[in-house]
């Protein structure tokens, strides 16, 4: 190729890159500014982001196609408390990777998706008071040499979920272990079962959900972090946030909250109901 041609060609691909860069440096972050309280009052419709693959919390029911779980029930109870019994409630499945952008972009009004309240996330969104106290744990095949997080040393692989707080934590608790991050809990568990890692780590409630129909895997070593779950709303939705907190308080006081806990976690072996709240 002659030199002139090369120069010509490089201009042709540099130019689009340049245009793209110009386009992008100019774009700001659009923020949804509409007040949720007002919006729901007008449309009588609220949209929650929930997990679709977390047994006990939010799991797509294959028979009906609906998402079912503790968080779905709690979201329903809160919505009815805040907006009245007639409000139409939509559930959009999210995963740990998609939930924050979807909330900030306004695809969903609120998130109730096994999301730990962390300082980093608090910079981006607001959280309600905690509605569930989870803790991080590890899941291994029965008979595995890994008995607790301390066994995850050099040469081991641990599977986590993209965007979850547990992959941030595991780097502190098992810094030498290689972390493989998959898109959601279902994929992570499938990867664990096919031997892609020595252990899987995420919050205990989620792990108990996975073991509830597969007895060849079990949770070992107890929890090693505290993961309080909160409902996420956008930064400027103070009215909505305080309404959620009031509703939570009321549901706790009148015993409805405890009923939901018993319904979903009462039968789970190894799960101490009293630690939930």
């Amino acid at each position, binding site marked *: 190729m002659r030199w002139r041609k090369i120069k010509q060609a490089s201009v042709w691909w540099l130019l689009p890159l340049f245009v793209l860069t110009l386009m992008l440096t100019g774009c700001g972050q659009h923020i949804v500014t509409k007040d949720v309280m007002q919006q729901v009052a007008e449309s009588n419709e609220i949209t929650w982001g929930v997990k679709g693959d977390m047994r006990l919390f939010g799991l797509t029911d294959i028979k009906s196609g609906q998402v079912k779980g503790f968080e779905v029930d709690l979201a329903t109870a809160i919505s009815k408390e805040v907006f009245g019994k007639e409000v139409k409630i939509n559930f959009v499945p999210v995963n740990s*990777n998609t939930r924050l*952008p979807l909330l900030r972009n306004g695809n969903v009004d609120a998130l109730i998706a096994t999301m730990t309240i962390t300082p980093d996330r608090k910079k981006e969104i607001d959280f309600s008071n905690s509605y569930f106290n989870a803790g991080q744990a590890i899941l291994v095949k029965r008979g595995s040499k890994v008995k607790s997080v301390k066994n995850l040393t050099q040469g081991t692989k641990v599977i986590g979920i993209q965007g979850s707080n547990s992959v941030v934590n595991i780097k502190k608790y098992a810094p030498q272990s290689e972390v493989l991050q998959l898109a959601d809990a279902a994929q992570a568990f499938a990867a664990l079962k096919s031997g892609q890692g020595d252990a899987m780590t995420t919050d205990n409630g989620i792990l108990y959900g996975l073991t509830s129909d597969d007895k060849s895997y079990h949770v070992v070593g107890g929890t090693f972090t505290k993961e309080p779950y909160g409902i996420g709303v956008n930064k400027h939705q103070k009215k909505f946030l305080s309404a959620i907190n009031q509703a939570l308080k009321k549901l706790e006081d009148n015993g409805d909250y405890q009923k939901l806990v018993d319904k979903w976690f009462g039968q789970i072996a190894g799960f101490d109901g009293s630690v939930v709240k």
Partner: protein
Amino acid sequence: MISILTAHWSELVEGMKYTIGSSLIALIGSLILGIIFAMFVISPNRWLRIIGSVYVEIFRNIPLLVVAMFFYIVMPRFVPGLDGFKAGTIGLTIYTSAFIAETFRAGIESVAVGQMEAARSNGMTYLQAMKYIILPQATKIVIPPLGNQFVNLVKNSSVLAFLAGFDLMYQGNLIASTTFKTTDTYLAVGLLYLVMTMPLSYLMRYLEKRWSRLPTV
């Protein structure tokens, strides 16, 4: 976007290494497999023809994601040690090889049948005629579509992100989910993909022009 590039440069470069590595391995692998199966498809032996056609049709009509996922979560039960990078690269190789086989078949068939007969009647064996007469001519015809396949390979290697394969897209997902700067991160990742693919496709376009000016027998 600039801040993502500067703050996470090392992860992104690491991801690019895996992307390029996977694409290169898959390119070489799929060229070899593709040529083998193209020879099967056009071979005079009926059974080889059937094997070749079935292989090509199956992998041309199943999504790459399904093939790659299969190697990641099903195959390790039978073949231990297939991690995300290996499984993804194998999936990519097999998937692409079906397209390359098809490209080669079309290329070889476009070199007239008469040539093969002429070569055979001059005393060459089937394989000799292939090697000295048909393949050199066919190569010229298949270079441009092969170039496109390589650009596709680089883009398609992003399925490694589904398998924790440490490629550029995977690193992008991790950065997006820890910095919460989703749009900026994916724009930065897009820019890096363009840096890899754009020169390739312009090179291919240039080669295509040059080849087309040459007489193709």
